[in-house]
């Protein structure tokens, strides 16, 4: 579904991402791990178009999307979340969600004047979808709260829900459980599984917490210093000396 070939990105003299080729299969949960500063987020930024690649090719659903604008990539069905959670703080939880769908009526220039009926019907529908998702995640009570007033863990969940509202084919999550409690982490795990099973969404997840991906992911890629150093099932990765070396340092 998603494929990169020899993708590279340099910042000055630093090779942030160096010749990385991966494949994400449809209907799976895949993980990307690596120590701090390994280039994981840069890699995500390249795939989603927030950064331009220096060389290499990115294909999504068979289409070349290298260096396409982020909003166009998102419209193709690949939506991401951010490590530094990016919600819309001064909008309510519900507003955060209903603004997300890509087929919203009424976002064009002429719509608010000429398509008032269609717009209202569409909004009603989007609100009911949003309310259902909120119920699913147990956030119904806070739906009229400003997003900035939510605890951090719930902001992370809100960001994920907002991405789900766009009806994506694949979700790229950048550290979905960074800085949140164990409860939220478990909740997130359940929710991701549920999304995969019920909506058939493919996941590609960056995570620091090894345990999180060990349980969730079917296949893992490991990068260090911008280079792909290993790939395999969680068991294979756990026992791979290169990975242990990258995480813990060599035994000398």
């Amino acid at each position: 579904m998603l494929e990169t070939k020899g993708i590279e990105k340099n910042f000055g003299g630093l090779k942030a991402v160096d010749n990385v080729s991966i494949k994400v299969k449809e209907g799976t949960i895949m993980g990307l791990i690596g120590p701090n500063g390994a280039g994981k987020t840069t890699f995500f930024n390249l795939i989603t178009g927030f950064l331009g690649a220096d060389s290499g090719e990115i294909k999504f659903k068979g289409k070349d999307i290298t260096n396409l604008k982020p909003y166009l990539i998102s419209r193709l069905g690949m939506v991401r979340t951010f490590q530094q959670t990016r919600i819309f703080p001064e909008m309510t939880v519900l507003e955060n969600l209903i603004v997300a769908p890509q087929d919203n009526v009424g976002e064009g220039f002429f719509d608010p004047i000429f398509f008032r009926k269609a717009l209202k019907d569409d909004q009603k529908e989007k609100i009911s979808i949003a309310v259902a998702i909120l119920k699913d995640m147990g956030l119904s009570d806070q739906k009229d709260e400003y997003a900035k007033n939510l605890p951090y863990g719930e902001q992370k969940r809100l960001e994920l829900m907002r991405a789900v509202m766009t009806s994506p084919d694949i979700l790229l999550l950048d550290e979905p459980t960074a800085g949140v409690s164990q409860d939220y982490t478990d909740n997130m795990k359940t929710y991701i599984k549920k999304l995969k099973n019920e909506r058939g969404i493919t996941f590609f997840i960056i995570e620091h917490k090894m345990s999180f991906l060990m349980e969730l992911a079917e296949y893992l890629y490991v990068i260090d210093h911008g280079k792909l150093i290993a790939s395999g099932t969680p068991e294979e990765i756990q026992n791979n000396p290169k990975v242990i070396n990258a995480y813990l340092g060599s035994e000398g």
Partner: protein
Amino acid sequence: MIIYSITCIGLNIVVGYTGFFSFARAAFFGIGAYTSALLVMSGVPFLIAIIAGGILAAIFGWILGLITVEMTGDYFALATFAFAEMTRQVFINWTGLTRGPLGLPGIPRPEIFGFRFSTNQAYLFLYIILLILVLIITEMYVKSPFGRLLKTIREDETAAQSLGKNIAKTKNISIAMGAFFGGVGGALYAHYITYIDPSAFVLHITIFFLIIVIAGGMGNNYGTILGAVMLVLVRELPRYLGLSPAFAASLQQMVYSSILVILMLVRPRGLLGERKLLSEQSSEEGGQIRNA
């Protein structure tokens, strides 16, 4: 008061909803004023002329938007400031068209279908109707998903892009819309005052507009109107109190600044804050928004 309301509703779209501090307001105001004045003086009907003023301002707004598409925050403010100064220089130096610093005297009062609005009462009546019209149109926009999209730009452009929103285009529309109402406001100003010259479109007036929007409440059109009423009252009050002009002028500045400081401390969101979408209500009424 009403002229300022219309202009500032336009500004509110850009500053309050989209979240960009634009210092180009005086430029759009001036473009609208000159366009409409010159058109009416060469025989074009009043209504067409003010709309033409608005449209020309919107075109310049669109161009400004294209140039500043990558800019945010302070950079955007500076670029708009430069644009405003350039426009003013054009007003001053294109003497063949604008008569430069001499200004344009004898701009006709509005005339619609043969009826000439010459008394102040008729004037007020016409302008109130126009204000209501502008208010209805902009409310339709800002309450719609389009308005919500504008807010996502203010809140977090990157996140909005990640959701597949064409931010550059939306931002441009917002600036052009704001410029349109700025232009219409300028046109109305020209026909009210009947004399314009480049000194009417300096930075000072942009700041006056910004104070109106900030004091009234960013992201709320009624707040903007309230802000305009309040600040124009403050400006005109010394005249009725019989204070000497020199004293009144400095007093004004002090009062403005005090209002700003007090509001920032007591009500940082302005007199009337932004409205919140409430779910119970909206699911029944389909996207209605009311005062939070």
